[in-house]
């Protein structure tokens, strides 16, 4: 066995655990101090501890879509202002979509870490802010330029030499709709990176910088070795997949193709998405670094799901993203829904590599957040309300198990639905149906998970916006497993004014109107004729499929 001789394995392992746990402490600080549920309950955040060369030393298992792109923020700052810009006691902020890659709501706060005048690293946190001053509260479905989407910052100093930049913080406060919780979340993020700073300083003081660097190299070497071993098992060759978004939310008739080409050579793997669509007028664009993150998530899900991420991760991986495409947006492309094609891309990585990693992949998932946003005045209390909900759906099956039903999509972390009792108490809606949608998962030897039906009856006049995706290409099956049924939203089902629609900004809804949202299922895996009759009958008993589907899809009668 090859081990580094310059440092003993016990010290390496103690330092490895200390770095990972420093990141955990940062995450715990952020979650403990955050004001808004999207951070403290949904965990829509991520933290990282970096070394002085912007390599990841430790990272919490935060929102996957933010994986490994906090270092791009410190790097971009250094490239713009020079290495000498880093000063002890400074804290920086950035949310620029074309640097951070995401929409403006995702804000990164970071700072340098010094020990005795020496720059030893950086700490960084990113979290979703509920509002950054976009033209509509909480974000729009129909923005066509970044300038409609809110305040664009950075890189910019929030704290200089330990002193808060009051003017900057006031400017942020006056540009967002909910200044109190927003500045609260900002302070929580500052507390988080300061916790990371203390932890990294403690580690440097305890072990010495030289030992820390030796341990770091050994930790990175171990991670790289483990990842390379998995890639080496993938036969050399080209693996590709093509996916499509329904539209950009503005031009509803034009689909947006996303094309992925993976080339494996030995222990190296390259991801190329340059053939994807040009950037769009509507808000489905993202910056390059976010496309890289999505590809890394797809890679990590298949190659190293259980390894804590660090600077040794992704060393065997390269990416090609084209500037000016939907995955490499340039100013002033709108980026509010930056993640719809990223969720698709993550599913596509599994589809492309399915021939080589048949036991690790899964059929596609329902795929997007499936948003219903409503706003108006609640007549019961005479107060305005805004409600933003994601809808859960089905996930793909894999070799050995059916896919899960009614699960949040991959870019939304551990988001929970809003309980009906909370919803009806807070908002003037009645939820008349919330059930698992039978037959929506793709059939297969292993069946795709089902979506849900959630039906709302308006108790007053209000406005409703919708963002439901993946209807042109519902979740696909693998190895003979069938495709799932896609999403469907029906306004006033069965009434003369019945209307089907998936994306809209500000639809006027009247008291008594019904909005029935149905999310899609996940793809199946394997030939449905190989599914055992017992499993099919159990599915009928458990209402996962109807008796008709049992006959039609599996040839199993009662």
């Amino acid at each position, binding site marked *: 066995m090859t081990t580094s001789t310059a440092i003993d394995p016990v010290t390496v392992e103690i330092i490895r655990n200390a770095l990972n*746990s420093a990141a955990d402490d940062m995450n715990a600080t952020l979650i403990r101090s955050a004001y808004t549920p999207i951070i403290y309950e949904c965990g829509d955040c991520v933290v990282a501890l970096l070394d002085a060369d912007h390599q990841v030393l430790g990272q919490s298992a935060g929102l996957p879509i933010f994986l490994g792109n906090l270092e791009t923020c410190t790097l971009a700052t250094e490239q713009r202002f020079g290495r000498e810009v880093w000063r002890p006691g400074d804290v920086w902020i950035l949310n620029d979509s074309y640097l951070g890659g995401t929409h403006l709501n995702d804000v990164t706060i970071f700072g340098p870490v010094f020990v005795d005048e020496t720059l030893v690293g950086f700490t960084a946190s990113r979290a979703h802010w509920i509002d950054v001053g976009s033209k509509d509260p909480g974000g729009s479905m129909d923005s066509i330029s970044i300038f409609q989407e809110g305040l664009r910052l950075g890189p910019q100093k929030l704290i200089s030499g330990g002193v808060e930049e009051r003017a900057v913080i006031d400017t942020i406060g006056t540009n967002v709709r909910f200044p109190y919780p927003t500045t609260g979340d900002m302070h929580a993020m500052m507390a988080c990176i300061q916790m990371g700073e203390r932890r990294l300083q403690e580690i440097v003081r305890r072990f010495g910088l030289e030992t820390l660097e030796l341990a770091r190299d050994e930790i990175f070497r171990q991670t790289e070795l483990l990842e390379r071993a998995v890639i080496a098992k993938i036969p050399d060759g080209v693996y590709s997949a093509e996916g499509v978004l329904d539209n950009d939310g503005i031009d509803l008739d034009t689909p947006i193709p996303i094309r992925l080409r993976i080339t494996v050579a030995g222990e190296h793997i390259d991801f190329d998405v340059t053939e994807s669509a040009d950037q769009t007028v509507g808000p489905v664009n993202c910056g390059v670094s976010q496309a890289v993150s999505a590809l890394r998530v797809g890679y990590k899900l298949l190659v190293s799901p259980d390894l804590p991420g660090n600077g040794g991760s992704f060393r065997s991986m390269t990416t090609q993203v084209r500037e000016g495409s939907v995955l490499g947006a340039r100013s002033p492309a709108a980026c509010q829904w930056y993640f719809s094609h990223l969720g698709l891309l993550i599913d596509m990585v599994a589809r492309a590599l399915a021939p080589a990693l048949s036991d690790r992949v899964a059929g596609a998932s329902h795929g997007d957040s499936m948003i219903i946003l409503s706003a108006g005045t609640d007549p019961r209390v005479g107060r305005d309300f805004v409600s933003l909900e994601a809808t859960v759906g089905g996930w793909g099956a894999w070799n050995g*198990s059916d896919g899960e039903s009614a699960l949040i999509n991959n870019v939304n972390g*551990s988001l929970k639905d809003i309980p009906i009792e909370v919803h009806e108490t807070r908002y003037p809606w009645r939820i008349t149906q*919330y059930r698992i949608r039978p037959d929506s998962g793709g059939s297969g030897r292993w069946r795709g998970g089902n979506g849900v039906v959630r039906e709302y009856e308006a108790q007053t006049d209000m406005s409703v916006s919708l963002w439901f995706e993946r209807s042109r290409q519902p979740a696909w099956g693998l190895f003979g497993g069938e495709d799932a049924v896609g999403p469907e939203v029906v306004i006033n089902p069965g009434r003369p004014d019945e209307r089907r629609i998936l994306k809209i900004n500000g639809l006027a809804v009247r008291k008594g109107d019904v909005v029935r949202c149905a999310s899609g299922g996940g793809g199946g895996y394997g030939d449905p004729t190989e599914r055992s009759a017992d499993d099919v009958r159990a599915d009928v008993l458990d209402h996962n499929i109807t008796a008709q589907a049992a006959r039609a899809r599996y040839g199993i009668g009662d």
Partner: protein
Amino acid sequence: MGRYRVAMDIGGTFTDVVTYDQQSGTFAATKASTTPGNLSEGVLSGLDAVVDEPSGIDFLVHGTTQGLNAFLERRGVPVLLLGTAGVEDTYHIARGPRTRLYDLHYRKPTPLVPRRDVLGIGGRIAADGTELTPLDEDAVREAARRARADGHGAIAVAFLFSYRNPAHELRAREILHEELGDDVTVSISHEAAKEWREYERTSSAVVEAYTGPIVRRYLLDLENRLAGRGLRVPLHVMQSSGGILTAESARRRPLQTLLSGPVGGAIAGAELSRQTGRPNLIGIDMGGTSFDVSLIVDGEPDVSAEAQLEGLPMLMSVVNIHTVGAGGGSVAWAEAGGLRVGPRSAGARPGPACYGRGGTEPTVTDANLVLGRIDPDGFAGGQMTLDTGLAATAVDGLAEMFGMTTTAMAEGICDVANSKMAQAIRTITVSRGIEPRDSALVAFGGAGPMHAVFLARELGIAETVVPRFPGAFSAWGMLQTQIRQDWTEPYFFLDQDLDVADMAAQLARMERDGLAALEHEGVSGNRRSASHAVDIRYAAQEYTLTVPLTGADEPNDPDFLPSVAQRFADLHKNRYGHANLGAPIEFVTLRTAAFGDLGRPEPQKWPAATSADFPYEIRTVVFDGTGRDTIVARRDDLFVGHTFDGPAVVIEDTATTVVPPDYAVSVDDIGSLVIRRKDSL
């Protein structure tokens, strides 16, 4: 009056029994084997070991794992679930989160009721409690027939907004009993958990229905057998909240006892905090396969209003126990040229290599044995002899891969395990907003005291306390508790809309109900008390904090609103690091806890040493890479006033305490070992 107060803590392998002799004022601890097939047997034999005549018992409490085991092994009774028609899938949708984010193969926690056994029942209550659609009584009767035909042992009923208006749930239960007789278990959600959030409340009712009949049967059997042997006092049962209740009440509300097992340790920590004047404690309970951390903050155990078991939620008061994947059984292994310890455990079978049950991988217990930190003949009260040779062989295999000596590897395994446990404790304290340095560490469980001082060193904690009977600390804690019954009432009002007189009237009613219930528990009037609290949040926040009130009539105080807002802001600052006094706040839930004081044992003064000397031997134990002459003393030989320097090992029946070279030990006046750094003395 009887002579003894007795507590029993039923663990997976052993039942710990602690008795307090009210005549002599002394405690005694013993162990009996747990009898998994029939837990009553183990309880009775444990009792026989310490008390001649059950009639001599004045007070008897036990923590049962009967319901928990049924849950964990999925041996509960088949449950039929009735939900509100149209939304009856709530239980299986389970709010839809993913808790492992890098998992393409994610499945939700397996629900206790399959979907085929969920029925939607017509009838709807609105958010304000008014009836929108009447209950479909025929559908309930049909459900009863289905339950009979399919052999469901229990029925859970969970309708929307039952916490605002329980009429449909109550009527459904009436019909089910009419159809199925009074013996069938019907658990209704607003009784299992009178709070909003339908998934969590439904899950609470389902867990109660699933485990309830088993807990009931067990308690009834045990009560009968104890009565048959002459026990004259009611049997008491530990609750997840840290309080106790009579077995009779526990049979009515079995959910409250589900997580009672590990709670005793936290209650014991609170009592130790009281007796020794240390407000903040971090309790570590380390066994063969588990490592549990509990916090005492300002003298109180850390309690929350929601618990999860294998991912399934329950709304009930529960003492927070943080389980960390570590323990004596954690396996050391190599990956890509790196050393790893855990999270995989060798468990009880095959267990560590030194158990001689076929395990070949080195574990933390093997490493401790190789270093001489465990007495091979005194493990688990001498009930087991450990094989040092097998341990050394296992550790040596790994040492060779890294080109290290066996002892260096053994110490490395312990160092890595200690650093991981310390980091886990640190993250728990950070989440709670506590600085570990401001607490003392209390070590219990068989393996806790072996690692505690190393953890204290990593965390910068000045004092480590090893109480008497560290292996039976939980049972000791159970002797210190009071009867507790919790009452909750949803109460949604923004501060600007609050009717303070109505709030006071609600609390007064809850206090009356609570005190009346204590009468059932056999608590006399002057020993009853009640405390009140209200859950508050900032308007539009999801999560609440429980803010204590001075009494049921506090809302009538003219300063009530500013004063409660200040209290909430203080708690918020303490818990979350910030607050916003003046922002609108929202009241969510009223809480009343009724307490019945059953008396508690006096702290037992431990005898003073008659001389500075005590018997010990010197053995070689490895610390910092070298074999050191180490004092090995018996706990029973140490008395108040004895002090000695590490390196040292203190052996007793239920645990081993390891003291590294730069630490010193003293014995306090209740017999605890107190271990501090030498240079701090």
